[in-house]
């Protein structure tokens, strides 16, 4: 899942793709993304027509339905500015998944063009803007989940680069870090038993490392793991990378 062929960044204006999960559940993550980008002097545009990247139907095999949504997304994010998205999964959908399902479509070039200027947040900050250290303070031990859609991309390492640079923040490793959390989109509801078993295993590994905060660059993984932990009656403190960076600027963990 490589995103090596990317349009160069010119200027400091981006379009924010907030993701459907943040639009529906995690507004603070989208807000933190805006604050983090603005802190870096980036002007953030938000196309109001945005909905979803199209991944649910793509993963479910309904490519006709997915293409309809991708076409809407391509129209919504018209222009040349980079599109920044606080999710490795949605980013991968645009630079990889959408390209796959448009292989035989006439508008493939438009889809590819959007893919080339789509960036996952940490990747954009570190490899797009060239920022590799973060200021402020975040006194906490953090376990970082490298979400699966960042495999083969620069996102995981970029996120760790930023986190390691935050004063006060300590990273802890945990067992089987390369394993999936079990979310997997529609997989989480069509394979609920396996999905939950994978998540439970992940939680055991994470808890064994005793972090204060469990961080990822994808809210989907955190929604699944946080939801499982809450149901077990042993909730864990989940944060998106953007929230950690924003909170660091404001002095540390916020409840």
């Amino acid at each position, binding site marked *: 899942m490589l995103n090596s062929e990317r349009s160069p960044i010119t200027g400091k204006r981006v379009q924010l793709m907030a993701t459907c999960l943040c639009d529906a559940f995690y*507004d603070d993550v989208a807000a933190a993304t805006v604050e983090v980008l603005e802190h870096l002097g980036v002007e953030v545009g938000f196309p109001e027509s945005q909905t979803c990247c199209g991944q649910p139907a793509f993963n479910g*095999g*309904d490519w006709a339905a997915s293409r309809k949504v991708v*076409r809407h997304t391509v129209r919504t994010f018209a222009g040349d500015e980079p599109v920044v998205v606080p999710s490795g999964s949605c980013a991968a959908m645009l630079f990889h998944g959408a390209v796959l399902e448009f292989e035989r479509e006439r508008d493939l070039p438009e889809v590819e063009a959007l893919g080339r200027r789509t960036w996952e947040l940490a990747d954009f900050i570190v490899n797009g803007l060239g920022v590799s250290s973060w200021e402020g303070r975040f006194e906490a031990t953090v376990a970082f989940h490298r979400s*699966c859609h960042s495999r083969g991309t620069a996102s995981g390492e970029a996120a760790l680069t930023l986190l390691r640079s935050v004063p006060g923040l300590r990273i802890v490793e945990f067992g089987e870090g390369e394993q999936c959390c079990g979310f997997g989109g529609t997989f989480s509801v069509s*394979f*609920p*038993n*396996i999905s939950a078993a994978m998540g439970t295993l992940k939680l055991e590994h994470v808890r064994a490392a005793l972090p204060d905060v469990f961080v990822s660059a994808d809210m989907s993984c955190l929604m699944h793991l946080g939801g499982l932990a809450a149901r077990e009656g042993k909730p864990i403190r989940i944060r998106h990378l953007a929230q950690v960076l924003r909170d660091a600027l404001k002095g540390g963990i916020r409840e």
Partner: protein
Amino acid sequence: MPFLASAPALPSAMPSQPIDQFARELSPETRASVYQSTKTTHEKRTKLLFDQFADPNRLRTLAGEIKQHAIENLDTLLPQVEARLTGNGAKVHWASTAQGACEAVLRIMQARGATKLVKAKTMVSEEIELAHFLEGHGIEALETDLGEFIVQIDHDHPSHIVRPIIHKNRREIARSFEREGLGAYDDDPGTITRRARHYLRHKYLAADVGLTGANFVSAESGRIVLVTNEGNSRFCLAATKCHIALVGIEKIVPRDRDLAVLLNLLGRSGTAQELTVYTEFIGGPKSAAQPDGPEEMHVIFVDNGRTEVLASECREILRCIRCGACLNVCPVYRQASGHAYRSVYPGPVGAVLSPLLAGERFPQLADLPKASSLCGACNEVCPVNIPIPDLLLRLRQRAKEENVPSPGTPPMGAWALLASQPTAWRAALAGGRLMNHVPTKLIPVPALQAWAAQRELPAWRGGEFRKWLRQRRSR
């Protein structure tokens, strides 16, 4: 035991996919065997590759290119390999179907008046159900790989490509041996192995024909490469007068030197060994240049659906060298075990290959490609760099196009409509708030119920971000 807790199971009435149901019923003991074994092998594999090679991923890419080149040039490589093999003194047979391959073996046996066959481990023989076929024709077909031998005496099926009995523990095996009269109950692995070896030694001596598969066949030299750990394939060929090699047509590589790349990856990826204990290169039957071995050699090339796979958009799966690394790393395989896949090839590779090889029976196995969170770990470990997640996705799309029912998969039509109409989307964002005021149990959406059976749903905050942004902008 740490790290083996399973989440509370769903009520069985809840629709979920067959593999999920299978995993739910799986005994904790089996899950523990599969999990421990796959995890250990995967971790050793990764350490070995990264300790010994500066960039294993470049090697995987190269190996993938070699195999892709081979499968895309079968039209020239197959005649070439036939000419080489014939020149080396072997007889070449072509079988387009499983039935045809089984009959080819039977004809060779009958022509020699042979009734006893010893088999080394070969996945393609499992695929064509050869042992079953031969037994139906009064021929003894004995498995000599220890794992396959145990599968055979138990009338079971292999559950892993490399480790057929990964789902069994030694206590079960000791009970099977006792039942078969191979000795009083003793679950010491050394004793079990010794007893099997003792039993099999006599069988090798009495057998007429030795049957093997092939890990690779070089089109350049016609050499057949066999990779084993137990030495049983050598025994199969040491005492018999006739060797039959059963080979899937995708096993061909263009040149002998390609083997250097592929063998370096196969042992490390499959069993975390630099090389397996035995690597045999068989150049032909007994001759002046090769004084040992059977006097007669037959190579049966099996298609059995492979050319159709080659013509499909999933042809990359034919690169597979059957190392099993994708099974070992796969979190779904670890939870569900191999039998969940209801086919000879389990795990990620099987989820692609099995429905494809099923031909017209595709709908019966169309659920297999769904048994993946698309995490991509399989692609990351594959020694020939097969983009397995992409292939799974293509097959999901094919299942949808062919209208194969998919229990538990939410319908996407209404969602696509909403997600392509911004006004409707924003209305839904606002309307979703109702969910915060109604107990989840009362909302008749199956996907929501499946989610909420084991996980809390976060509070609905649809539209809050947009409101925040507008306020921030107007300040």
